[in-house]
């Protein structure tokens, strides 16, 4: 029998195509998304700082599926269908969530296809009505501070800071300029104004920046932010 080269290729291709089908595991495809919200309003945090963990029991070793909230408080997981337990670990995030005293309880989540799950949290404070303006290359923000938790769990304000950055990632780690006031120096929480120094020139003559205000709560690691705002500046 004469062995023809194109038969070999044909057979090899068939084998490869079939085996691909055979040994590749199915990828997770159910999408669990949501936001951290308070009264329907998104809680803004620092990116990569507020962890959200999922646990699934019954598969041997116990470990978390780890995700973090984005700047605007949104999160997403790509999962297999099944029963999960969701938790925002103790002391994480500038809010109280599903907790009695200091410890938090898990939330049972059943994933079956794509779904949206907003996590209702109670922030210690909220920044309201933030208005930004640019005076030359200096950025100002005027805003109010609303204390949400006033019972025995209330915390003091450590400081409030206006952060300005050239990209939309704005936080203590990512900023060009910032201006800060200590919590003890705030006399009228209903209207606080902060102004940064003039910004240095930005490469490419970018004529806009992003700004938001972060509030540091005493003994809480994560800051709570106001929504991100794009501010146009003079060159």
């Amino acid at each position, binding site marked *: 029998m004469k062995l023809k080269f194109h038969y070999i290729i044909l057979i090899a291709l068939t084998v490869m195509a079939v085996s691909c089908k055979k040994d590749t595991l199915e990828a997770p495809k159910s999408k669990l998304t949501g936001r951290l919200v308070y009264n329907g309003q998104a809680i803004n945090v620092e990116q990569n700082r507020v962890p959200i963990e999922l646990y699934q029991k019954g598969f041997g070793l*116990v470990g978390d599926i780890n995700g973090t909230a984005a700047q605007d408080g949104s999160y997403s997981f790509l999962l297999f269908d099944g029963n999960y337990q969701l938790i925002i670990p*103790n*002391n994480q995030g500038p809010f109280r969530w599903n907790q009695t005293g200091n410890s938090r309880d898990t939330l049972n989540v059943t994933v079956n296809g794509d779904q949206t799950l907003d996590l209702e949290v109670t922030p210690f404070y909220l920044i309201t009505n933030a208005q930004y303006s640019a005076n030359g290359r200096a950025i100002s923000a005027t805003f109010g501070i609303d204390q949400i938790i006033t019972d025995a769990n209330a915390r003091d304000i450590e400081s409030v800071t206006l952060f300005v950055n050239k990209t939309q990632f704005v936080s203590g780690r990512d900023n060009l300029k910032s201006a800060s006031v200590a919590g003890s120096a705030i006399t009228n929480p209903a209207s606080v104004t902060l102004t940064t120094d003039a910004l240095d020139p930005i490469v490419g003559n970018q004529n806009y920046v992003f700004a938001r205000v972060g509030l540091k709560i005493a003994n*809480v*690691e994560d800051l709570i932010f106001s929504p991100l705002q794009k501010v146009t500046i003079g060159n």
Partner: protein
Amino acid sequence: MKKIFIMTMSAALLITGSCKDNNYLDIDPRDVVPTDRMFSDPALVLSVVADLYQRQLDFSGLDNGWASFVDFSEAFPSENGSSFFVQRTNWGFGEWNTWDYAYIRDMNLFIERATASTELNAADKRRFIAEGRFLRAAYYFEMVKRMGGVPIITSSLTYDGDVLTLRKPRAKESEVYDFVISELTAIKGDLPANPDTKSRASRGAAFAMMSRAALYAGSIAKYGATTPTVTLPGDEVGIPASLANGYYQQSLAAADSIIEGKAGSYSLYRSLPNLSDNFAAIFTDKSSVNRESIFIEDFRVGTNKVHSFTVNNQPYSRSEEGADAGRLNPSLNIVQSFELLDNTYAPIPTVDGSGNPIYYTNQQDIFAGRDARLAGTVMLPGSIFKGAAIDIRAGYQNAAGDIVTNGNLPGTSTPSIGLDGPSDGLEFRTQTGFYIRKYLDPVTGSGRRGRRSDVAFIRYRYAEVLLNGAEAAFELGQTSKALGYINQVRSRAGLTTALTTLTFDKIVHERRVELVFEGHTLYDMKRWRLAHVVWDGGIMTVAQLKANIGSATKRNTQPFSLWPYLYQNPGNANHGKWMFREVKLSRVTGANTFQMGNYYSEINNNIISRNPEIVRQPNQ
């Protein structure tokens, strides 16, 4: 017929005869020494304990490489592959973790077998057992610093089919410290009180470790109150504030024991008239003149136990190994922290009051009148190393005021940038304007890969014991005693005007400048609960860098450089003089961010899955 009979008989005899000796094939292996024989000869036991010594864990060590010294903005890594040190914006929660229960098991087995041994003489046996317990205490101390409370296992565990009895929960953090202290108390009498015993456990080493461990526990108890979230309900992490004084007293008592000579005569090293050379020699002098080093990791040229610290960090212009040089560059942050001789803090004066550059005749004039430890720790521009001056020049400034870094110096064939740099991104030369001097071996050949260096790594030294005693006494309100101790350390460094008042900030400062690059930085900042304040992730400006020097809470997130330029303007009075500029290198894009979850390193999920009794660390 007869022939057959004889043959059969002899075959039968042969077979039965050889069958008789059942042990014929049962021979002792030649490459494994049985336990009972091992523990019958002191020389053999020494080789076992040597292995346990070798496996000690240090935060920074000469044999775990230059990179273990470079973090925390006290230095810049001049190796482009290691730029992540200054580019990352956080440390992983698992950073610095350790969970080596195999090592603990080996130490427990060693202690058990040495105890069971009948053929060792009593003195040898006591010393070996004490060494085993010393090393076990040292490792538990290392664990509790990194992980908080861990399961305390003091005997070798045997699996008999039931895994549940082998699962031990985490002890309280204070219990681990108590264990370390009580072990050291129990064995100190069995260890030699001899200052020349440096690489094996000695009574001095036991007291020194006790003083450090109790100090750590005391400060965690006291300053832990400022970070209430860094605790666990079962006290696996965090120590109640009420225990602080007890620990400080134990720390002071242990320090006093060494200072009063109960462990042999230790003293500060004062052998050389030049105080900076004297300070550098503490780390290179291994003779019995050195009564300062208490417990060291020793090395020896010509054996496998040598290290590459000098190879990796020698000045480029004086390198004995071509481009293998210059990696660890101390930052301006640490350089400017060294006090002036009148006990005040000041930034390195690069500009005068109105912002004009100050011109210096010699490069080293800008550092004049400072703590002698500066030049003993850091190799400043123009320092002599191995017989010639190092050549640090970032370029020149011409009459028009332009900084020129390319070409040659005007009218010469000398390149405008020095042989040692600095130039942004030019690796293996200094990029901060400084090289490391601590541990750098001045012996010819120490910079060659074929020979390398045998400078010892000092784990415990007398100056730290004095500072431990000073801090403990200060926290207990015994200020005059504290001043007596801290002033000894300072006067050895040329700060001869004695302090008359003491503050917490001064103690933080003193430990920083005396003990920098000795593996203390992280643990000190952690126990004072200052780490999240000092490394808060904020970016730094030059103005911030130069302000508030000496404050314990000063931000220190990014390393800065100080670049010398030659002023070239013939006819001008300042022609040929030096001016300096602070520089933030382009690679320094990250800022050290210490999260609350970094205070205690993560116990990974595999460990927790295998033993559900282990509780997770807080804030992770």
